[in-house]
């Protein structure tokens, strides 16, 4: 297992390097000074720009610039936001917890719902309940998330008044109290559900089909022949097998959450990385854009790594094979 993990971690490094090179060149291709944000974009004086370029080392060979950027990045210096006039790292640090909270809640909702519905459908295929769930799944897969989000705001926030329509927390509540966290959860539920809707639907469907397929496997018959009750067979024997492919989805999921958060956070005015990214693109705050791009790419890589490692944990054939 250790060896396996180590191999995965090592395998990530060249990937990280390649991604950083791409992001670096994209940043170079961006207009203005997307790497450091030190050059004031409103100052169009050529002398000033030339002077700043010299000062920031933009006349050095590309690899020197890359090296400087990458080492800065790794040491937490993501440049300076041209819009907020503060270090991008601080800016991201401000929003990141919200996005992580959103993503984790979304994952939780996704997996809980997918398990509940998938297990039900898989055990009772072709029943009314299964068909209802299938209906939900098809809707979840086909309705674009922005349509669903907009609907959700109007229906659940305004019409039914069940959830807040914007923000991440009720500002009047003191930080750290239980109410504070309840308020955060209350705020995050709706966007998290919309964000996870697509995955929930696909995982439910996947789990259902996988359960049905696995329930036809020989080992199920063996377990039955041992006198193991059907319920236990589903919950232990079959489920453990069906979880394995689901775990690999986790990696993709993180990539999807990252992208999906952009749309969801916008609709729910949820102040996270996605909204910051969108705002920064719209305001040409390129240092922030590039830092977020790099960070999200790294996050996806790490997500895949986690998925790989989890995969190893749940599947002995991978772990030991």
């Amino acid at each position, binding site marked *: 297992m250790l060896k396996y993990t180590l191999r995965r971690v090592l395998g990530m490094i060249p990937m990280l390097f390649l991604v950083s090179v791409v992001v670096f060149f994209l940043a170079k291709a961006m207009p203005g000074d997307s790497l450091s944000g030190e050059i004031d974009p409103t100052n169009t004086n050529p002398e000033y720009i030339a002077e700043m370029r010299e000062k920031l080392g933009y006349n050095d060979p590309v690899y020197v610039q890359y090296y400087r950027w990458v080492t800065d990045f790794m040491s937490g210096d993501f440049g300076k936001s041209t819009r907020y006039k503060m270090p991008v790292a601080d800016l991201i640090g401000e929003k990141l917890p919200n996005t992580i909270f959103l993503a984790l809640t979304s994952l939780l909702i996704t997996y809980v719902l997918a398990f509940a519905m998938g297990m039900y459908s898989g055990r009772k295929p072709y029943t009314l309940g299964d068909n209802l769930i299938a209906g939900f799944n098809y809707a979840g897969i086909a309705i674009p998330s922005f349509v669903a989000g907009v609907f959700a705001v109007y229906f659940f926030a305004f019409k039914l008044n069940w959830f807040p329509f914007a923000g991440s927390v009720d500002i009047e509540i003191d930080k750290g109290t239980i109410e504070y966290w309840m308020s955060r959860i209350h705020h995050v539920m709706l966007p998290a559900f919309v964000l996870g809707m697509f995955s929930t639907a696909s995982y439910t469907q996947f789990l259902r089909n996988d359960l049905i397929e696995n329930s036809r496997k020989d080992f199920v018959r063996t377990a039955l022949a041992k006198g193991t009750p059907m319920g236990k067979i589903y919950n232990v024997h079959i489920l453990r097998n069906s979880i394995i492919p689901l775990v690999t989805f986790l990696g993709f999921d993180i990539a999807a959450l990252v992208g999906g958060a952009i749309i969801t956070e916008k609709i729910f005015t949820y102040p996270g990385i996605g909204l910051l990214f969108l705002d920064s693109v719209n*305001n040409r705050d390129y240092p922030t854009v590039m830092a977020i791009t790099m960070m999200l790419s790294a996050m996806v890589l790490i997500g895949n790594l986690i998925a790989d490692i989890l995969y190893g944990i749940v599947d002995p054939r991978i772990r030991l094979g």
Partner: protein
Amino acid sequence: MKRKSMLWLFAMILVLSAFLAACGGGGSDDASESDSGESKDGEKATEEQSGEPQQGGTLTYGLDATPEGLYNWAFYGIATDAEIIEFFDEGLIEYDENLQPIPNLAEWETEDNQHFTFKFKEGVKWHNGEELTVNDWVFALETIAHPDYDGPRYANVETIEGAPAFRAGEADSISGLKVVDDYTIEVTFDEPRLNNLTNIWSYPMSQKEFEGIEVADMSGSEQVRTKPVGLGPFKVENIVPGESIELVKNEDYWNGEVNLDKIIIRVIDNTATVGALQNGDIDMISLQPVSAPDVEKLDNVEVVTAPGLSYYYVGFKLGKFDNASKTITEELPKYQDVNLRKAMAHAINREEWIDAFFFGYGKPVNKPVPTAHWIAADDSEVNVYEYDPEKAKQLLDEAGFVDTNDDGFREDPNGEEFVVKFSHYATGNPTFESRSQAIAQYWEEVGLKSEVEMVEVNLYYDMVEKDDPSIETFFGGWGTGTDPDPSALWKADQLWNYPRYDNPEADALLEQALSVEEVGDDQEKRAQVYAEWQKKVTEDVPMIFIAELDEIMGVGEKVGGFSMDVSGYNNPAEWYLKQ
């Protein structure tokens, strides 16, 4: 007394949609894409139906754009931030409904419009408990004049004697500032000007609060971003970046009792505006015209409007500007014919267009100054270009623009294909495309082939500013300030004179209007000079003036004590909630 809104304090505010933000040195005015064709009275108050203001309660104020989080007058960049600072900080001077300066935290005296003596109110306390003294103002002015200062306000300090020297590092202090005692200061400007008072930076900064912070680090400091202090009726209690701000009553407010206990400012998406107002999730919000009709339909919300200080125009690129030498270097031939420009102005049905795209919350403007401003000339004094397609066709015929090849469109006097290229900024807001398309269609109806080009908004103002050859006619908007002087937008040596309008006579009038010798304190005479200038501009048609917009507020029925006029809304200390 009316409380001045920072939205229009600064002369140069580009009007963009709510989607975007700052451009150039000034703040962009996110919320002001609005006006009323119904032209309600300049002032409308919600207190009329209610009796005595009640104490207590929490009011929720909505913002449909995200603040940048620079909560200090000296550092903020966008109007959204200013909207927030309004609640907890104020300046030495206010403006009345005629946009005339009136004393607030300080009174002033001057003999010659160059030397001023300011007397501060005593006993006014910052939120941190320190007393306001003139040193706090000196501190603010020196901060802005400091070479490391990274905000956009230097122009408001530059005219103080000795400020350039201080900025260049040649002096330790600004020589034009003479502290007499804690409450008295004498300010000397580099020369007498009529707008010295309205131009000068009038916001103190708490010296104590910023102790030990280098000027370069200020904009990133928590004193600016998360724990700002001010002099206003409310104190900042808590900030959740990018989403909400909690303000609590300032018990020690110098200017009367504050009615509300709390104000919560919430950032919302503009699609949520109507729903949030309807549900009472927010009590107040500055509305975009597009939302206003839906809000009007709500029983529990009142729509309050006041004349705005911004207008839309279609500009013609008449020349090229060199920013280094500050001169217009080249004349562009395509739209030089004034009859062509006049014809294009006559071709546009502005009433119809405004009704269609601003839902009755705007009206046609006929001059380069919003009607509500005291320098605005009467329509009878300027050239008005009413919708008159026949006149437009006639003007074009006379100018030699006729259809020579029977393709349905006019060729230029040389018989060459003539295509009007019309640029508009694009933000993802689909109405921008249709409203610019509509203008192009008006031109097509009088026989001018027209093409619309949508340019990504940030790029757009860059291109307009740099006289990019692809920009020929362009859509734009200004917010003019309380300071009547329009020089920065119109004189031939100004970067922001986007059409590159170059008429020495007009420039001379602008100078005359500011001249102490010629105009002095005579406001009427000054207005007269500006009226002459406005006539000149409308004769030359460097831009077609399209629409001026009202400010619109959606105010919940619970809210009392709110009023608003051209100078902004009243002091939030007077607002209250009906129980």
